[in-house]
């Protein structure tokens, strides 16, 4: 599946449509490549949405230092800080607590929080503000 720009897939309606398609056809995942990026959607195979079956997070960027601190809660555009609080950006060296909001993923006008899964000191931020990230993409790594 090819399209000119990956950004045309950032529309949640398109993502929802794709997700429904995966679910209906019992397909595990779909990987969309475009000239300027890629998007991977993973669906729970053979299970209804009510089951406790867990999808494995997708790690598009390999070989990051430290261990996973936070990943993308949805596909969308990465924003390192809230647009009204640019001074409160979490960057390398920042100490975070478990449950902190460390960044946001923008889906159209909606801001979805990126949550620290554990406490630690950030050693890498893998995306830049404005880039498209896939669901489950590792966004922050940390040393605990």
């Amino acid at each position, binding site marked *: 599946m090819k399209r000119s720009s990956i950004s045309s897939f950032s529309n949640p309606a398109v993502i929802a449509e794709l*997700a429904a398609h995966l679910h209906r056809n019992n397909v595990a995942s779909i990987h969309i490549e475009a000239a300027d990026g890629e998007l991977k959607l993973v669906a729970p195979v053979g299970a209804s949405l009510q089951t406790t079956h867990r999808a494995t997070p997708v790690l598009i960027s390999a070989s990051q230092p430290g261990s996973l601190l936070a990943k993308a809660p949805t596909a969308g555009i990465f924003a390192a800080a809230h*647009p009204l609080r640019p001074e409160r950006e979490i960057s390398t060296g920042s100490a975070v607590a478990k449950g902190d909001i460390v960044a946001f993923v923008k889906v*159209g*006008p*909606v*801001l979805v929080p990126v*949550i620290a899964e554990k406490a630690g000191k950030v050693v890498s931020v893998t995306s830049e503000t404005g880039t498209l990230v896939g669901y489950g993409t590792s966004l922050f790594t940390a040393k605990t």
Partner: protein
Amino acid sequence: MIHVLGCGPLNTIQDLGRAGYRNIGVTATGAMDPIALKVGNLLVGNDEDAAGIEIQTFPFRIEFEQAQVFALTGADCAARLDGQDLPPWWCIRAEPGQVLELSTPMKSARAYLCLQGGIDVPLVMGSRSTSLRGSFGGHEGRPLAVGDILPVMAGTTISPPVNGFGIVPPAQAMPNLFPVSDTGDLILRAIPAGEHDLFGDDSERFWSQTWKITSQSDRTGYRLSGAPLQLSAPVELRSYGIIPGIVQVPPGGEPIIQMSDANTAGGYPKMAGVIDGDLWRLGQARIGSKISFRQSSLTEALAVERAIDAYIDDIRRTLPLVANALVAMTKR
């Protein structure tokens, strides 16, 4: 129900206003920043004109008597829910007994608290807005006070994720649409009104000079200070209908911009009318801040109106999709 634990003067319940009664002298009232109220309501799944709380004096503190989805929009008040930081323009669920606290904002003037279901106060002439001048509407026709208990209507249309979610505020979502000067002053776009030309050369100075919002400014109107403007010759006007955004010049020569609680009729000469698309920015302008006016056109006003409508429509369409997708993902 929510319980008001801490509250400054003049915080009121507002919706989008009591339109349609200005012909009998009833002020429209309504939120000073209608975009913030609309977005707050959409965030919690309400109709965009549900009643919320307009908070303009701080600190403001409430306790939730029951589990309650709420949203905060407008000025960033460094909100804390049981001590935990909340981002601005945010929607989250509070648990029974949790306390929400807002501090004085560093920028902008007014915050809006919207509750899922909407605040349950009686409709008076089609609106729940507080009319301070008429002492009716809202909560007992008066500003909120410590000890007030406000009922909330039922509503469960949107479930935010555990840590909540938010909306990109209008000025950040549409940075090219809302001009500010190099020095950060608010630039308001306005259209010349009936007596504009009767001010002769002084009408030029209205557009070229920077005005300061004086401390004699409130929901009724903003009094500006600057070099006074005078009519070339005196004029006696018959009383005419007034709307928010009208810039009048009283005999003293310093303009007044009428706002949400303005009288419905008046007789001062009118210099200009701020375009609707900039009224919310004026509603967020702080006492002591500086503004200037830029002559606008209907074409520009229409473009701004459409862009704001598209922004609201995008939120209305996208938010339920994202909310449902996040629920589906967390259930896996």
